[in-house]
């Protein structure tokens, strides 16, 4: 029964790993973040870093944050992939078969998430190469990947929902503009909560990126992880994917 879904998912994956440009993007984007943004606090006194960031290396702080933020960006690729299939007519080819529409939705979401997760080993390797000491073991890696996968499923679903009924190339960019920056800066991905005014702290408390970034820090920098964060992220993923699947059954268009 899942044959149709796996066929569509494999198509997404093949299109990702066969494109050299996709690889350039996958590798360069997180590396640039870590190297350039991560180095911007190099001359900050280490007492300051310890007090506010609970680490003496800003790169260690930003690593889980940037991994979380990149799961926000993969949502954009899910929705772009939907638009592309509509534009090139491929969606009609799919819709002419008995495969349920929510399979198409799920394949786009899972394709986007997979794409985001490919960045995890790349980022960890870069961080280690830059001298960050990470607490890597089976548990920490599984928890990190799960947290990011949940976050990615949630955001990819959100993005995809907005492109169910349109074939406008501009749509993903507009959505990105509306949600990426606010979500990124209202989370604790880049800066600690202590920096924020109260209203921003309130937003950050309901921002899923915060939970993924914090949990990532806890497992990678070996403080005690707050397991409930994983539950919150799973709930976020579940709710978004159910909403998306239901809407796609009714509203997804072929062109």
């Amino acid at each position, binding site marked *: 029964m899942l044959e*149709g879904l796996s*066929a569509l998912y494999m*198509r997404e994956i093949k*299109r990702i790993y066969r494109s050299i440009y996709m690889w350039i993007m996958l590798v360069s984007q997180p590396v640039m973040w870590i190297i350039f943004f991560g180095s911007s606090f190099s001359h900050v006194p280490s007492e300051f870093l310890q007090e506010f960031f609970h680490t003496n290396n800003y790169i260690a702080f930003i690593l889980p944050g940037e991994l979380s933020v990149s799961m926000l960006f993969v949502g954009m690729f899910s929705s772009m992939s939907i638009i592309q299939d509509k534009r*090139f007519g491929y969606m*009609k*080819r799919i819709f*002419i*078969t*008995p495969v349920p529409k929510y399979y198409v939705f799920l394949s786009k979401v899972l394709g986007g998430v997979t794409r985001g997760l490919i960045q995890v080993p790349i980022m960890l390797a870069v961080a280690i190469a830059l001298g960050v000491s990470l607490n890597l073991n089976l548990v920490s890696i599984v928890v990190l990947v799960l947290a990011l996968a949940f976050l990615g499923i949630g955001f990819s679903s959100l993005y995809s929902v907005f492109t169910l009924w349109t074939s406008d190339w501009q749509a993903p960019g507009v959505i990105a503009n509306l949600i990426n920056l606010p979500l990124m800066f209202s989370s604790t991905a880049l800066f600690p909560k202590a920096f924020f005014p109260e209203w921003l702290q309130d937003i950050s408390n309901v921002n899923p990126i915060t939970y993924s970034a914090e949990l990532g820090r806890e497992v990678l920098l070996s403080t005690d992880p707050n397991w409930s964060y994983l539950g919150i992220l799973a709930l976020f993923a579940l709710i978004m994917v159910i909403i998306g699947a239901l809407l796609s059954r009714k509203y997804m268009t072929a062109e």
Partner: protein
Amino acid sequence: MSVVIAKNLTKKYNDFVAVDHINFQIEKGEIFGLLGPNGAGKTTTIKMLTGLTSITEGDALIGGISIKERPNEVKKRIGWISSEVIVDDDLTAWENIEIQAKLLKVKDWKERADAILEYFGIKEFKNRKAGKFSTGMRKKLEITMALLNSPEIVFMDEPTIGLDVNTRASLWNLIRQINKDYSATILLTTHYMEEADMLCKKIGIINKGKIVALGSPEELKEKYGGDVIEIELKDGLNVELNKFGQVIRKDGKISVKTGNAEEVLLGVINTIGSNNIKSLRIKKSSLDTVFLNLTGGSLEEEGEFDLRKFNMMMRRARR
């Protein structure tokens, strides 16, 4: 039993009626043609029959199954070939076929796919990316995909649009061959009357969403045919020609519909006066004159193919 029975099939886009209560039947093994100019409602009809768009009114039975009530059952039993050739250029031919087979839940698709590719002479290229295929090969790949599930009917929307003369001729052969060798029942749409004339056993002429005539090419010519004399007069002249046949005036041209043009030609020229004629053309009875007689319009003119638009579409589709 009829493979397709369309009953009052109707599609409205808001208030605009794109397909207007059409009725037709397609018998097993037949090539049925929907012939009509651009915007007549051909694509919309196929979209309704394949479940790509909702049906406003009426219904269609495909292999006895209602597309309205059980679309997924119908979708398993049909094949579809788009006018713009839709395959995934980033995947190999074989991968394209594999996805199609899995979405259609076809068992033993590998053997069948190999056999069809062999039949088309493109089996050796099956592991090549579809984006590297020529237009003809892409068409063959698309037809392979459409035949995978041994469909009860194959829908082909303007299969030869935008093809050069040679490719078009070979595609005609291909369509005839699969009709015979794979006993494929085919519904094709076209605005080329010679295509409908040559390929189709039965034709529905569609204009402005309505089927205006239905029958074999011979029946249609017999019933609605007749020759047409098309005359362009020198500026400012007007001549009464009603005694030679029905007269239609359009875009500065006079069309005289008549049974046999040769019989009245001399009379027409004498009536006008030969030095008052700018141009004169005889159109022998054909589906084009059938269309003219039925609608007062011309397939050629109204169906004017916008090459620039089509090329843009192809470029978009192929990146």
